[in-house]
């Protein structure tokens, strides 16, 4: 049993998806999906324990040894992210029941859950696998499932948003495939470990350079690095609320994992940062992303779109951390990966509660909500403070490390820009706070009740996590530091 954990992690949600068809009834499906998620979560915890005990776990699919068969490889980095993905997925699904009832017909809900499970499968598959082609396959599974989920939003624009994402996502996937294909052409292997061994022999060829470039662009499209982020704001804004929570918290994070895995483990630090101008590209794009997306966020009137742009800017921070190319920088990225997932889950879940009651996420609808829905609004405010990087929230911890990393490398002008990014975050968060707390409710607005507990409790779990991990940082900082060491260790 124990040695099958890596495959169980992927196979549980994969098998659960078709079973939903058989169950059909939405209420049954809901419970079943929750159970599947909890199982996946338990497996991910056991995986981390196993990794801590035995080091990297290697699992050969069907008993076929690595170069021939597909290999799953779980080290501390994947295990850490698997916990993140499965825990967020589980807590989110708790809120799904009531949120979905409000936002889509009951007949459609089963399909939504199936897409959700498949998306989870894809994300976990990407994390678990040690095979480059497998990464592509799972990436497509998760992407196709996301397109479906987004298209199920109750706004007609969600179809358009989904289509936009489909086009962009497919371009990205194609680029990734071309990159992997070129790597295969040069080395004759798809196993990441083998690739890492064989690539150095041929690394000074134009083909490998091209492969790297294609792969990088493809992944950056997937993780919505500025200026390849165009699909993201609409997708987040018009998707069903639950889908937004799940995608915002996990899918871009997994794309960043792919980026890390390939530039550090497969191509190697030496190649990525010295032969390729990765530092310049990532730092400049990351910074522009942070500033530009934050500025755009300030002018949004749709609050889901506002936080979608904020996501783009937060991704900029993570990319910046990678771009620094030091261990502290990478620690900052790993921390922010985790922390940003917590912030955005809290915020988008609270917004889901708001949609449930108010039906709109336009800023005008927020007037007076501070008094009518105090807990929901408080969740958004705490999440917002965390985004800004107030001390005692997780946001502060990641900012601290990022700035420390920048100062260590003597890039203080960049550090100043990062702090300016925080200030821009204040601007867009505070616009919301002012309207919600200090503007009286409109005359013709009826009084709204607090969001249902089924949504509020999961949202507050994330809010408390935002504060808890902002105070007790030993788990996140420890793991982030170790994974950063791991990535640099492999690079040597």
């Amino acid at each position, binding site marked *: 049993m124990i040695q099958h954990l890596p495959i169980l992690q992927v196979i549980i949600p994969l098998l659960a998806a078709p079973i939903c068809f058989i169950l059909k009834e939405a209420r049954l499906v809901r419970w079943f999906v929750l159970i599947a998620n909890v199982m996946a979560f338990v497996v991910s915890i056991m995986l981390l324990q196993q990794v801590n005990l035995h080091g990297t776990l290697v699992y050969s699919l069907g008993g076929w040894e690595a170069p021939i068969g597909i290999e799953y490889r779980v080290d501390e980095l994947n295990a850490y992210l698997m916990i993140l993905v499965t825990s967020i997925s589980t807590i989110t699904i708790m809120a799904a029941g009531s949120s979905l009832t409000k936002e889509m017909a009951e007949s459609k809900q089963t399909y939504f859950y199936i897409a959700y499970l498949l998306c989870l499968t894809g994300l976990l598959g990407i994390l678990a696998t040690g095979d480059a082609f497998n990464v592509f396959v799972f990436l497509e599974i998760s992407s196709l499932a996301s397109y479906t989920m987004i298209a199920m939003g109750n706004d007609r624009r969600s179809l358009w948003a989904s289509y936009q994402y489909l086009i962009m996502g497919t371009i990205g996937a194609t680029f990734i495939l071309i990159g992997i294909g070129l790597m295969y052409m040069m080395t004759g292997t798809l196993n990441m470990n083998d690739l890492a061994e064989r690539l150095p022999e041929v690394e000074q060829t134009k083909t490998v350079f091209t492969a790297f470039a294609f792969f990088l662009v493809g992944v950056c499209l997937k993780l919505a690095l500025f200026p390849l982020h165009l699909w993201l704001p609409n997708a987040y804004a018009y998707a069903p609320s639950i889908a937004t929570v799940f995608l915002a918290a996990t899918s871009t994070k997994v794309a960043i994992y792919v980026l890390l895995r390939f530039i550090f483990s497969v191509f190697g630090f030496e190649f990525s940062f010295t032969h390729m101008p990765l530092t310049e590209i990532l730092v400049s794009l990351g910074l522009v992303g942070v500033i530009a997306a934050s500025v755009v966020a300030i002018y949004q009137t749709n609050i889901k779109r506002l936080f979608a742009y904020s996501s783009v800017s937060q991704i900029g921070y993570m990319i910046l951390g990678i771009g620094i190319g030091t261990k502290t920088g990478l620690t900052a990225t790993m921390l922010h990966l985790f922390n940003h997932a917590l912030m955005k889950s809290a915020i988008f879940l609270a917004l889901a509660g708001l949609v449930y009651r108010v039906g709109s996420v336009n800023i005008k609808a927020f007037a007076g909500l501070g008094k009518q829905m105090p807990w929901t609004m408080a969740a958004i405010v705490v999440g917002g*403070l965390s985004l800004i*990087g*107030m*001390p*005692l929230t997780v946001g502060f*911890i990641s900012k*601290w490390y990022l*700035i*420390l990393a920048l*100062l*260590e490398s003597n890039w*203080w002008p960049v*550090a*100043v820009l990062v*702090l*300016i990014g*925080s*200030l821009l975050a*204040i*601007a867009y968060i*505070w616009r919301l706070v*002012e309207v919600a*707390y*200090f*503007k*009286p409710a409109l005359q013709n607005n009826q009084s709204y009740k607090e969001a249902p507990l089924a949504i509020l409790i999961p949202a507050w779990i994330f809010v408390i996590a935002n504060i808890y991990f902002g*105070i*007790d*940082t030993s788990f996140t*900082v420890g793991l982030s530091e170790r994974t950063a060491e791991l990535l640099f260790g492999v690079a040597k």
Partner: protein
Amino acid sequence: MSNEISNQLSNEIANQMMTQEALMQWIILLPLLAIPGILLFHKKQNLREAATLIVGTILLFAVVAFYQGFDAGQGAYVHWWELLPGLNIAFRAEPLGVLFSLVAGSLWLVTSIYSIGYMRGHGEGNQTRFYCFFAVAITGVMGLAFADNLFTLFVFYEILTLSTYPLVTHAGTDKARHGGRVYLSILLVTSILFFLFAVIGTWAETGNLTFTAGGVFDNSTSKMVVSVLLALFVFGIGKAAVMPFHRWLPAAMVAPTPVSALLHAVAVVKAGVFSIMKVCVYIFGIDLLAELPITDWLLYIATAGVLLASLVAMRQDNLKKRLAYSTVSQLGYITIGALLATQSGVLGGSFHIVAHAFGKITLFFCAGAIMVAAHKTEISDMRGLGKTMPLTMIAFFIGSMSIIGLPPAAGMWSKWYLLMGTLEAEQVAVMIVLMISSLLNIAYLLPIPLRAFFDGNRSVVSIRRDEIKEAPWPSLLALSITAIMTIVFFFWPQPFYGLAESLANIAGGAHG
């Protein structure tokens, strides 16, 4: 409350109930305990206010007891938790912190009494929210006062900023929201862009954020870097309202008067100058400050601020605005005291934290009382008010004396030591400016009570005298207490003077 009883009570607390360490934590957390009470009784005004008053009284005894048990040699130390390796939330009692906690602790109670009269007399809404955030702000002040390191200080500094924002925006009108926006944006921008940057910079340079007598920098850090960090600290601690980052203070005057009184004459602004003083004494050390060329420049900027703010104050007709600019100017005195980098400067600056707090809060109380009772906000309308509101105007007079630095008011001592500090540091220009500023203080403060008493016939607006009475009694009581304290501290400055002196000794300790 007579002194004996309070002494006895505080001794009881000190001796029987708890150690200094426990007491310090209670002081930080006590204000929060008022919140459940406030929320529970949000429908019953009297009980709700009782919650604040009871907790405020206990807090007062606690800070007095803490002061009595305080030994400058070995202050209590409490470690809460380690956020990141080496980055702690920890508290330590040292003279300046004890001094600040005494001031804030005693004035919270007085202000609460005052608020009851004011908020009801003025018919303000959302009072439950008001008292809750007030309590949070006091916790912020106490945590800041006892912070053992820069990081803890920063955390509570930000808590104070955020918890006072709803108080500033209290009215919820467009004007209030605008004021709140200016308030929040200047304070957060300076704190994140400069202050936090300086904290992280100090951490990156020295790896030590703990307040240490004599400072944390050694010779390995280049003078250039230290200078930049000092400038970042001085401007980043926006609460000290060093020009050109003073705009938030007048903007915040849209707040209800008790807020302006406690927060913008005592808690928030004093948190700012307190932080600057702490950073100068315990992070840089006055020896290092004296060596840095940039210290002089910052000193001149602060000095110019003192003069400019006084001049601007003269031109304000709105009483609260005038007091606000006067505060900006007076805060400059304390910043100057810190930057003079001499023992007298530190002594005078720290004592001015006390003297200005009691004097200015009296003035604000009076301004609020006039607003509630006579509905006047403009100074030109206040002629002749002395006959109908004699108590208020006498208190105003005493407060003004203290701000100007005339005997018999506490403000005299701080000005005395500050001037000595300028002589020790051989900064004649600064000394002259301080004296000119005192003259300006006379010009913009004293006419208000004098005209109120002696200029009644030329009253611009005809007031129907019989309709105006003194403000509600809780407000009157509060402003009388602070006015009397201002005089008491002239004759009996010992407790605060002692603390300020031991701080000066610690600061000068590095001299050997």
